[in-house]
């Protein structure tokens, strides 16, 4: 069941969100289960072996991790679903942005 928890951790991370919108990015993700983040991030990175923390940071937080970052991430996730940029993990259909975020968080440890 810990695998289901991985997914839930990802779902939590980017779902929409008055609360997220008010929070700063690093803080809101600090509650995520570390093991779940690691497993999800590793799965995404397995399909993107060239991804680095630096490249993911540039992709996900081009304007820094302030309050504007989270609404932007959410918009990216929504756009991913519109364009078929998805990350399938154990049956869950997630946005590629969610996968990339988990990868970044897993690299940051």
């Amino acid at each position, binding site marked *: 069941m810990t*695998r289901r928890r991985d997914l839930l951790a990802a779902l939590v991370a980017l779902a929409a969100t008055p609360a997220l919108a008010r929070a700063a990015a690093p803080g809101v993700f600090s509650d995520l289960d570390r093991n779940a983040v690691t497993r999800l991030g590793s799965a995404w990175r397995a399909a993107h072996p060239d991804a680095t923390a630096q490249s993911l940071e540039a992709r996900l937080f081009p304007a820094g991790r302030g309050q504007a970052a989270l609404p932007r991430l959410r918009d990216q996730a929504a756009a991913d679903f519109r364009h078929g940029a*998805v990350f399938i993990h*154990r*049956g869950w*259909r997630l946005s590629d942005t969610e996968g990339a975020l988990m990868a970044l968080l897993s690299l940051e440890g």
Partner: protein
Amino acid sequence: MAIIDARTLPDASPIEADLLIIGGGMAGIALAKELAGGALKVAILESGGLEIDEANQALYVGSGVQRAPGNPDRPFDEYLVQSRIRALGGSGMVWGGKCAPLDPADFAERPWIAHSGWPITREAMQPYYDRACDLLEIPRFPLEHPPSTDPARQHLALEPADGFFPAPREFSRFSGGTDKAAFDAFRTGFAEAPNITVYLHANVVKIRRQGDEIVGLDVACLDGKRHPAKAARYVLAVGGVENVRLLLASDNLGNGRDLVGRFFQGHVTYSNDGDAETEGSAVAIFRAAPMDLYAPAKRGAHCVIGAGLPAQKRMKTGNFTATLFRAQGFKPDTQAIARMGAKLETPEGNGEGQMLGYFAMAEHFPNPDSRVTLDPEHKDALGMPRARLTWTYGTKDYADLERSVTGLADALGASGEGRLCWSIERGQLLALSSASRHHMGTTRMHVDPAKGVVDADLRLHEAKNLYVAGSSVFPTSGIANPTLTILALVMRLADHLKAETAR
């Protein structure tokens, strides 16, 4: 007027009426109710008795198999005898009472779906659906449902352009399994009308035709008695498989174009529990608002997520629904994670998580190779050949199911309402599917005799005084439980018969 056990009549007693209804199930009873107190002398010929009886039930025994590309054949011999009830009230004796109309898309001709399109529109069916709802004492289903003002029953905020919508379901108490006393009154009270007679244990084993006219019926009792029956008009209403069996056993009646029994369509649900490699069928919902509209705490009115015509047109798929339910069995750590998510989702940070299970349903497309035939090697106690069901899917069925699931997952994701898990491999779908007891399409309705067994008035193309009632006339099956549509079509047929006999 009376309920008569046909076994108590002297052998060869003639049964005569203006209208003979073959079958005392929900369709036959509803038709008799509509005609009760009128000018027509009506008789119902019901195979069973007042209660479920093993010997009568055994008349349903047949054989079957389910087939789908890329899946091993699934033996289905027990399905026929377990599907229907042979007693006054028919399968209403055991049905769950769930009611829903077919969607407008179900009636539409959809160019990407072969053999789609009814000769009636959903709009034209509305008054008949209303009357069927009134008969079952459930709320009506207007074409446009205003959103509920109850904060616990709010629609998911999916993008309208995606084409998914909340499709309502209601429950009638007129079910032997729900309110036996009410159902007993429902299935017997109408026989008190002076123009109605119900014959029990009266099995029609042959429909006799001369040219394009039905001239009589052969009625048989399990105790060996035989009775002739004759009327000006006849309605065949013994179910989607038995309608076929009786027509084919009646010298291939109605089958001049080799259509009787073809296009069998059934409803199945798909869900799984997951395994070491995958999660089971589940939905994570992010909003804090209750999901009572979709997953009520108790059995009752609810909505499923349906794929409307815009979604079907966009994805080039058929009808599809996801029925959400409150699931147990998520382990404590999973629940904790879901709760953590809800805290992040709510401004106050005190929400609860919403993990739900779901089962998926997809329209079974009309397929001439999906069919009911006779098994001449095996006969029932009355000498009739038993039925053989070959329930067949084509490649499009499963491909469309998967595309529909993906479409819903993307709609949930794009709207920010949630995420969806689907982990059933295509080669597992047949084995994992759970079949409903809905038998549709086998005497399909079409204005063209080359494409249908009955016309838009439900009259057999080959016989001017025989009508067919029941889900066997559905050209396409949609996903909704068929009873309400069966009854709505019966209302329409009753009006037709009244008008025709008044002329």
